[in-house]
């Protein structure tokens, strides 16, 4: 038997599972995205309506606002996580008393279910009950009310996401930092490079694949966040934290507008893929090209 045939046979179970649970649902959503299908409409059957759903969503102010909010959330959350994760990884590369204990405590948020994270943060932040608004008012006279102030609600969702997912970034960075070869750093030191130059010209380029992979994972997660935010703010006040996942959920489930919801899901998927690809093309492919030239 040819080695390629054996290879395909080994791959077959994974490909079949991927096809059933990944490709088929995607194709189903793709088909529904081009239909008018609302189970509580006068005509509840699925009917092909061309690009009408997409025509509707490019003018849908609520959808566009949700999209803008989600991009803003993704930018602030992912940037903060990468920076904080990197600094914590650098910290864990050094020896200090209680390092093992601190590292264990630091990774605990990762094992908590997002819905529980949202509930916990809500209990801590809800006005009149949570300890954080109480002590902020007592000590600093600051009025923290995520049910009333739009900026505070947005910031609370970002901080919650950063708290929950920074440990993942730290662990990835830690693994990447631990696997870096020593020779380039020694050579840079011999050449008289200072700490910033070593970071900029040696550490950062060597860490680039790990950083990029982490950014992809976190960006994809941030753009489809639903449960944590749903528990913390419910998308409010008003629509201030109604990120795209929540908006799609509202359209698909309470409003049962499956066709329109599917088209929004497709556009969200499209934007996520395009952003990740642009990031890859801008940071990796272009620089590799310069190196070749």
């Amino acid at each position, binding site marked *: 038997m*040819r080695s*390629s*045939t054996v*290879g*395909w046979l080994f791959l077959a179970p994974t490909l079949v599972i991927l096809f059933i649970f990944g490709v088929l649902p995607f194709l189903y959503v793709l088909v529904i995205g081009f239909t008018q299908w609302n189970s509580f409409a006068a005509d509840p059957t699925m009917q092909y309506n061309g*690009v009408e759903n*997409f*025509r509707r969503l*490019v*003018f849908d102010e609520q959808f566009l606002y949700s999209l803008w909010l989600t991009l803003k959330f993704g930018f602030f959350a992912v940037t903060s996580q990468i920076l904080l994760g990197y600094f914590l990884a650098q910290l864990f590369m050094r020896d200090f008393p209680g390092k093992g204990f601190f590292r264990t405590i630091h990774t605990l948020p990762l094992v908590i279910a997002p819905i529980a994270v949202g509930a916990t943060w809500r209990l801590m932040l809800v006005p009149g009950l949570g300890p954080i608004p109480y002590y902020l008012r007592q000590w600093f006279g600051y009025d923290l009310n995520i049910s009333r102030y739009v900026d505070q609600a947005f910031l609370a969702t970002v901080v919650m996401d950063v708290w929950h997912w920074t440990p993942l970034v730290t662990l990835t960075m830690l693994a990447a930092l631990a696997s870096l070869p020593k020779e380039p750093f020694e050579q840079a030191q011999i050449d008289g490079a200072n700490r910033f130059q070593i970071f900029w010209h040696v550490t950062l380029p060597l860490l680039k694949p790990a950083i990029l992979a982490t950014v992809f994972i976190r960006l994809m997660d941030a753009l489809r966040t639903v449960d944590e935010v749903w528990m913390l703010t419910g998308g409010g006040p008003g629509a201030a934290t109604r990120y795209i996942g929540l908006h799609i959920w509202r359209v698909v489930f309470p409003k049962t507008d499956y066709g329109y919801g599917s088209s929004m899901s497709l*556009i969200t998927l*499209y934007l996520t*893929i*395009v952003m990740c*690809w642009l990031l890859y*093309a801008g940071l990796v*492919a*272009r620089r*590799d*090209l310069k190196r*070749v030239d």
Partner: protein
Amino acid sequence: MADLNDLPAEPRRGFLPIHTNTFDRCFIAVVLFVAIHLFWMRFLEASLSLTVATVLSVIVGAIVIARG
């Protein structure tokens, strides 16, 4: 059965600012196809039919795949 090594994945340099293989160029063509249609529906469809966008997208896609 096709060998994975037989796939046309050889990178090359066209007018795009990165090295691309056939899959990359098809991907870029599809991305542009969707982007052009969404842009057209939002800003230009009132004056020009969406069919124009489709024709334009197919031409742009063909150029990207052939010369990108």
